[in-house]
């Protein structure tokens, strides 16, 4: 179950894992990167910090296995650059230096059905990107609840990673013999605060009133608390049980959550702010759910949460255990702490996830009707849909292992070039994947069944689950399916979908995404426009509907709006 393995032990992996990894690795070895890295002396002796998982080794080995094609293409370009400007080169070199230090992990992710998927995650990838990657591989419905979770069986803890977190960093804190796991699960509590903000911000009101709350009021709550100059933390206050240091006893304390930390009211003092004692601040701790603490620590209930430094993996006096009376209280606190700790990132993550889900649902809706059609037409249609691959595709499909690398230079000359000019580090992953996808893409048509549980040929597994759906879809809406596959990072997708609306998107599509990728999180606009098309998967969208956004209800705000509009009319 261990997730982290040094690349040397790759041969120990199962076959299909290996294939997946190979694909990822190849992707990593962007031709340009390779050369540049080689140029710089510092490269071969990469950062000391990455010593536990030496990324350079795989890189160099991979390079040696297929040296001819990349060099040819790359070296000339490089000389050109040299000729152009030394400055450019140095900047580039710097980027590459950073690149060389990038830490990569092989991560095994457990699925709900007990199966697992193995992926390569690099230091710069955040959880959102990894989730997007998993969406492609699993073909799930992409709803906002899908999360990556980390479990610690020894401490009986788990938590969901936040989408903006980098995955490699927390995983690096695990010990070598750790039994910790990474799970891919739907966790409703992750974004519950945005679906039902009233349960957190008006938790003191009676439950019936909260249930009947209008969507517009929810919207107002989100506006008030997440869209102002400052993020507002729910005002939580209540008696919790605190496990006493080193003992198995629990004592009660009146705790209060504030943006600056958790406080408690000392005995005999008032609740006034100035008397509060700081229990802990959030800079250096994460919040975890505790499992089955009644048995393990004799907790009063099983609704426990824990605060600890992410590096701490074993029992320690530095772990704070808290116990609530019921599940609702526990969720209130854990969510409140997350809001205090992560602030606006949480809301941004949600908006991104929501967009992702919306785009996906458009695709799903379209695909279901069309999927009834025979998949035969798909191959013919594919070509128009993905113009770039065709020429080189056949060659690749014939020889899988080596093919991908060839493809890079041959197929996509523009992307590498672009990279040379603007070296943003985040680029490589997306680009790598996109070249990769085409080859996988071609073979699949026959194995229509192969998705999900059955990874047919090892290779197809990594990025190819969708093909079946694809075929059907192509007719009505070719782009959506490919986009996840092709260009996993968010930016490309929108571009694709946008282009997809007109029937045949000409060759250009791939390159623009590559450039767009320089801006890490771009999908905002395009997906927004797309979102309106579907029936209505995510009802509460976002900022566009503001206070009294014109809804018809006879309530206060809307009346005001009417008044204002009339007034303007008068003038």
């Amino acid at each position, binding site marked *: 179950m261990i997730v982290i393995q040094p690349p040397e032990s790759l041969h120990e992996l199962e076959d299909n894992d290996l294939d997946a990894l190979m694909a990822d690795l190849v992707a990593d070895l962007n031709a340009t990167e390779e050369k540049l890295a080689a140029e710089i*002396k*510092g490269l071969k*002796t990469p950062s000391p*910090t990455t010593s536990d998982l030496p990324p350079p080794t795989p890189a160099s080995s991979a390079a040696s296995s297929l040296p001819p094609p990349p060099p040819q293409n790359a070296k000339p370009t490089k000389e050109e650059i040299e000729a152009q400007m030394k*400055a450019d080169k*140095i*900047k580039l070199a*710097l980027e590459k*230096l950073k690149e060389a230090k990038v830490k990569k992990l092989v991560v095994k992710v457990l699925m709900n059905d007990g199966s697992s998927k193995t992926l390569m995650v690099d230091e710069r990838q955040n959880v959102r990107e990894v989730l997007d990657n998993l969406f492609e591989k699993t073909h799930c419905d992409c709803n906002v609840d899908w999360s990556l979770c980390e479990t610690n069986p020894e401490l009986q803890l788990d938590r969901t990673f936040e989408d903006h977190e980098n995955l490699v960093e927390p995983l690096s804190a695990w*010990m070598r013999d750790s039994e910790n796991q990474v799970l891919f699960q739907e966790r409703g509590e992750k974004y519950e605060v945005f679906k039902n903000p009233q349960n957190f911000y008006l938790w*003191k009101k009676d439950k019936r009133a909260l249930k009947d709350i209008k969507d*517009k009021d929810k919207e*107002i709550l989100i506006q*008030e608390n997440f869209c*102002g*100059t*400052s993020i*507002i*933390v729910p*005002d939580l206050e209540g008696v919790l049980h605190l496990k006493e240091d080193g003992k198995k006893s629990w004592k009660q304390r009146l705790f209060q959550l*504030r*943006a*600056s*930390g958790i*406080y408690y009211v000392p005995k005999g003092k*008032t*609740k006034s*702010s*100035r008397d*509060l004692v*700081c229990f802990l*601040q959030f*800079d*250096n701790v994460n919040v975890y759910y505790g499992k089955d603490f009644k048995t393990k620590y004799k907790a009063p209930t099983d609704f426990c949460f824990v605060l600890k*430094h*992410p*590096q*701490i*993996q*074993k029992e*320690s*006096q*530095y*772990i704070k255990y808290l116990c609530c009376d019921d599940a609702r209280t526990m969720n209130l606190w854990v969510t409140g702490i997350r809001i205090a700790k992560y602030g606006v990132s949480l809301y941004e993550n949600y908006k991104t996830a929501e967009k992702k889900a919306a785009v996906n649902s458009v695709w799903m809706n379209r695909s279901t009707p069309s999927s009834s059609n025979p998949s035969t037409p798909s191959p013919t249609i594919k070509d128009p849909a993905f113009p770039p691959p065709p020429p080189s595709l056949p060659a690749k499909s014939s020889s899988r292992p080596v093919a991908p690398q060839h493809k890079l230079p041959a197929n996509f000359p523009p992307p590498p070039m672009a990279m040379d000019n603007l070296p943003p580090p985040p680029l490589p992953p997306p680009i790598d994947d996109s070249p990769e996808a085409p080859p996988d893409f071609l073979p699949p048509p026959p194995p229509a069944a192969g998705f999900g549980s059955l990874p047919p040929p090892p290779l197809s597994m990594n990025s190819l689950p969708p093909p079946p759906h694809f075929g059907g879809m192509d007719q009505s809406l070719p782009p959506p399916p490919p986009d996840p596959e092709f260009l996993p990072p968010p930016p490309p997708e929108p571009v694709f979908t946008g282009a997809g609306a007109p029937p045949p998107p000409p060759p250009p599509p791939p390159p623009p995404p590559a450039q767009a990728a320089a801006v890490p999180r771009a999908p905002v606009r395009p997906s927004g426009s797309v979102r309106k098309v579907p029936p209505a998967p995510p009802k509460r969208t976002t900022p566009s509907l*503001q*206070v*009294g956004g014109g809804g018809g209800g006879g*309530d*206060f*705000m809307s*009346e*005001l*709006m009417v*008044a*204002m509009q*009339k*007034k*303007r009319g*008068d*003038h």
Partner: protein
Amino acid sequence: MAITSFLFVPPAFSSTPGIGTLLCQICLLHFSLSLSPSLSPSMAAWDLSVTVEDLGPDTPPVSLSVTSDLHVGGVILKLVEKTQIKRDWSDHALWWEQKQCWLLRTAWSLEKYGIHADARLHFMPQHKPLKLGLPNGITLRLHACYSSPVFQTVMHICRMLNIRHPEELSLLRPIEEKKKKKDKDSTEEIYDLTEVPLSSGTIHSFSTSRPCLYNGMPAHFADSPQMEAVYKMLSVTQPPPAPEVIAKQYRPASVVDKAHINGRWLDSSRCLMQQGIQENDRLWLRFKYFTFYDIEPKYDVVRLTQLYEQARWAILLEDIDCTEEEMMLFGALQYHISKVSQSEPQMLSSSAAMDDLESALQSLEVKMEGESSSASEMLVETLFICFRPKRLTLKGYKQYWFKFQDTSISYFKSKEESIGEPIQQINLKGCEVAPDVNMAAQKFLIRLLIPAPEGMNEVYLRCENEQQYAQWMAGCRLASKGKSLADNSYQSEIQSIHSFLAMQKTNSSSHGNAPANDESINTHSLVSPRYHKKYKAKQLTPRILDAYQNVAQLSLTDAVMRFIQVWQALPDFGLSYIVVRFKGSRKDEVLGIAPNRLIRIDLGVGDVVKTWRYNNMKQWNVNWDIRQMAIEFEGNVNIAFSCVTADCKIVHEFIGGYIFMSTRSREKSDVLNEELFHKLTGGHEAL
């Protein structure tokens, strides 16, 4: 019974042109008419006496022979002719003392106004000097309009001061200062803005639009060095006040105390004269509605600065409660803000490294050399180390040869052995760093809590002297955040540690006089008086320094924004209190008015017992006869109360004002909807 109901009806009347221009037109009109002297024969002439301010206080009133059908414009004309003074009278108007109103409708006849021979009229300018206390505590003298509703007067003032969104501010009567001695009042520096020409016209379009700047400031400030000084005062934060100054100021001790200040707000729908404000009186300008819309640091320099000042004083005077940790953060931010604003303010925004080739090259150099250990990114020194000290003695310390590289420290038996494997290497990334310093005892300890799978390891490093301590401490701080010594903030980190050590030195030696010298800010200047008693300055210093490390990298604007954000995140932020008596209740309770809700505070319990949100509000009514407010919420919730510490107009205006604030949004036009404001906040007059 006069009951005003506030439902939402579109305003029926449209705005009138500026009063000044109207008056001018009418004067001209009547100049031509008066050439043919005509008193209607049916009307009897009578004497009207008018005091002309410009003739001096001792001059008796001017007596005019008028008839009841003469309009006000005609009266003014006669008056001007009679005084025989040639000057610009366009700003002048008649004020009717008994009725406390301006006769601004110059076309109205005396009869229509109901003016008879017993009326005492005053002829005076509508704009007069006013002493304005700003949120930063400085007094400004400027010309304010005494005849238009306060809402508009505030708009004029804010326009002059370059504060956008004037609807968020208002005027209030200052708290009387107890004058124990005849001190400083005479020496108090007053900035004078009375020379600024009264700009008439497009007030409306100003309210939210961006002013065009000249030399980084509005054009009227660029006229003279004096004006530039005024702008600097407005736009640059004030240095921390001396602790005695803080201690001397009035501090509310309870919610009820805090409620009293809200009785002082002026009525936005009536003018200054009507509220008894005389020429050269003092008023405070403050942010009243705590919803700060569309803050744009580029255009809101003065607005942000004054907002920061108001927030800072609210914290220092405990107008809003916070915890000790929060107070330390506020202290650290104040220290940082005063430090950066005293140094070159322009230099702050340039933190985008890597942009130019220079820095890229430099960085490359460092990186390359990093492999071969350059001095610039490595510290090598003999230090003492102690693991898990049992007691705080110096006993457990052992001496080693230490090396600090990247984010790790390693130590060796001796310098000679430092080529080989270290005894141990400790990565500081993610660790907690705390100082344990006593300048007097020359104790320089760095306490490290280093996370490990088994828990946190506590390690102390002991340095020999201040210099060594500052370097290693700065290194540890950066490393804990994952930055190496090569980071360009390393030197400034060292600097700030030095200056905090210096503070400790001066505090421990000479106590009391706290000059504004940057190196020696008294930490008591940064926290509320409560902490003056609780901690000595030298105890406070390390706590503030501790909080300071998290904010030391912020630019001036970011630090100001951060201060405002932390202030806004306080649970009690935005609450304005009023003591009220709920219908059917026999005791006083407190109503808290927030931007989005009302709360009811039981003084006995001392806690919030009920919350009502505005978005559930259906309507509210004011019964002006019995001074009672009644509010209806959805779900048949009705509340009614009378106000004890403030007029019910003030409460009504607060609620209506917040409703108004919530109607602002970007999609709508940029023009401030003044009439809606009056509709929502006015009294009977508005109906």
